[in-house]
């Protein structure tokens, strides 16, 4: 068991982003985002699709020039030029970015060569990474013959060949089966324990809670809250999350709920718009009001769930929207 990571405020951070901003035309993708990651720390950037996670990551990895702000990795500035800071970053993109017609080993060797690893070290690291991602037995197989989960694991492995100081993973579990997802999360856990700083973006709240030492919640390009999952949950400690499922549409009912005094966040969900999630103070005393309102509006409530506060509730509370919207 390794020691827990230090705070980036007390130790020299591996990643130091200061006041990052980026626009695409009139649209503000990232607005004044600052974040720091300490060695061995796993930082989750949590937000819905289009919140600015990938744009932030592209700036962190030197793939996109920020309109404002700076990125430093181990005190070295990152830019779109091929500077020395990039040697320290391992980038795992959201989509599998590999040569499909090369073998597993050839792909790892290719990415290792890009980081100028000497031959012997490259051979050793390729073997180590194959072992780490559990693909040693398939090392000679072409990538296009692998299952989706194996490709995802190799996608992560390609970002590890050069032993990066900072590993950046952009939603690595999107579209992955539960077994492979579990394997990926286990691996990421291990990276943090081995001292690697990890920047992990996701819109799965449970992944952030399970993996991350600290979480930054990003919404519409702004970092709206940051802290450990426990600290963030404390923001809504006296609040509950109520999930109401109805037999039909809930648009009118949801708007009426929003006007109730103790409702602090509301989101609609479900495949047919038949779910309303609310962050409220004192759910039990508010529940009769909610049911009365449903009765008045002719809404047939099928189920009611009241949860303890979690990151999902935090997100709802802070942004007024659900993570998966």
């Amino acid at each position, binding site marked *: 068991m390794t020691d827990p990571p230090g705070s980036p405020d007390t130790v020299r951070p591996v990643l130091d982003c200061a006041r990052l901003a980026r626009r695409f035309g009139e649209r503000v993708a990232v607005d004044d985002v600052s974040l720091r990651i300490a060695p061995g720390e796993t930082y989750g950037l949590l937000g819905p699709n289009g919140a600015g996670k990938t744009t932030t990551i592209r700036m962190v*990895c*030197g*793939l996109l020039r920020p309109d404002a702000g700076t990125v430093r990795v181990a005190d070295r500035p990152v830019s*779109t*030029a*091929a*500077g*020395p800071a*990039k*040697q320290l*970053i391992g*980038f795992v*993109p959201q*989509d*599998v*970015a*590999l*040569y*499909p*017609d*090369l073998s597993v080993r*050839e792909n790892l060797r*290719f*990415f290792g*060569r*890009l*980081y*100028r690893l000497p031959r012997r070290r490259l051979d050793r690291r390729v073997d180590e990474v194959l072992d780490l991602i559990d693909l040693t037995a398939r090392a000679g197989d072409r990538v296009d013959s692998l299952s989706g989960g194996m490709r995802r694991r190799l996608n992560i492995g*390609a970002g590890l060949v*050069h032993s990066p100081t900072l590993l950046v993973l952009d939603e690595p579990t999107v579209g992955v089966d539960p077994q492979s997802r579990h394997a990926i999360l286990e691996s990421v856990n291990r990276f943090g324990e081995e001292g690697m700083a990890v920047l992990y973006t996701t819109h799965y709240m449970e992944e952030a809670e399970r993996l991350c030492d600290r979480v930054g919640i990003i919404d519409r390009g702004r970092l709206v809250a940051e802290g450990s999952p426990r600290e963030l949950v404390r923001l809504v400690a006296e609040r509950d999350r109520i999930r109401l499922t109805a037999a039909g549409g809930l648009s009118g009912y949801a708007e009426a709920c929003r006007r109730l005094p103790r409702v602090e966040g509301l989101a609609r969900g479900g495949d047919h718009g038949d779910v309303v999630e609310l962050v409220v103070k004192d759910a039990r005393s508010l529940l009769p009001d909610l049911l009365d309102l449903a009765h008045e509006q002719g809404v047939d409530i099928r189920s009611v769930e009241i949860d303890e506060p979690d990151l999902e509730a935090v997100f709802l509370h802070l942004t007024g929207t659900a993570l998966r919207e």
Partner: protein
Amino acid sequence: MTALAVTRATLTRVLRDRTALFFMVLLPVAIIVVIGVTVRGFDQFRVGLVPDPRSGPVAQELAADLAKAPGLRTRSYADAADARTALRRAELDAVILMPAGLDESVRAGRSVTVRVLVEPSGSAGHAAVSSVSAVVADHAGRLQAARFATGQSGGTFDGNLALARGAERASSPVAVRAETVNGQSDYLPLGYSYSTPTMLVLFVFINALAGGAAIVQTRRTGVYARALAAPVPARALVAGETIAYLLLALLQSLLIVGIGALAFDVAWGDPLAAGVLVTVWALVGTGAGVLAGALFRTPEQVHAIGPALGIGLGMLGGCMWPLALVPGWLRTAGHAVPQAWAVDAWTTLLSRDGDLSSVARELTVLTAFAVALLTCASLALRHRLTTSPGA
């Protein structure tokens, strides 16, 4: 080093792709054979020979002369009807019917006519008659000399004919060399000497264009974007791909040159000039291929447009038929594309024993094409990689 990593990956992928190897090696060779066989008919006529069954030594000597003539490929038929059938089926360009009693007529001093049959629509048949006439005239000259000597100084006809043969061998013959000429007094390589270099020009360009599809595919896999997150400048990726496609173009050129020399007896001319021409043409093709890889959005677009464009430019530039056969305005327009300059250079090297200085103008123009294409390709691909690397 990082550029070479890209080069190595690209070469591995292409050389492992059986479809790519088919288009790189087998298809060019197949088309060289087809066009080579077709165009070869112009310099060697297929002639059927129907001898007289009771022929004597004079008729046999004429048949032997016809068989030895360099412009004729003769085949004997016992039956004239069979030879006519072969002529109608276009298996022959002409049929020679050896006259009956040739020996007796010649010895008696009578005039003899050798009948040559041709199809009215075949231009090759009329050209074949000229070649046959030349051989027959040569033979007749010898007979006339023997008859003249017999009449003037005595002796036997056969003895004087033998003396005439000896005198012919001892004297310096007046040689006539036949050349196919166009308006500029240039003559063209024929047969495989035409089809092999023109197919080299055509296929190196087409394959390089098709290689652009692999660049588009790599762009879309996100490998370039990922590579740019490493300490790798975009220019190293561009250089890596360019080197890979240049090596592939050179490899394909060397294969075609080797197969042409060994299997089709093509003499490629001055080695230095041929080497420079192959290299410059490979650079032209590489520039076009990398440019296609930067400009097209999908591999399917490259596959659909690339070969059609390559064939179109090849037709315009004289890869399918000699530009000497097309109207002047089309010949001029053809020289707007690099293929025409490459074919001109090969024509000079193969048919006129040209050297580096004699193809300097063509090489200069081709170098300008190569520089322009490579510059545009490099800028376009770098722009694509740095602005939208995953697109």
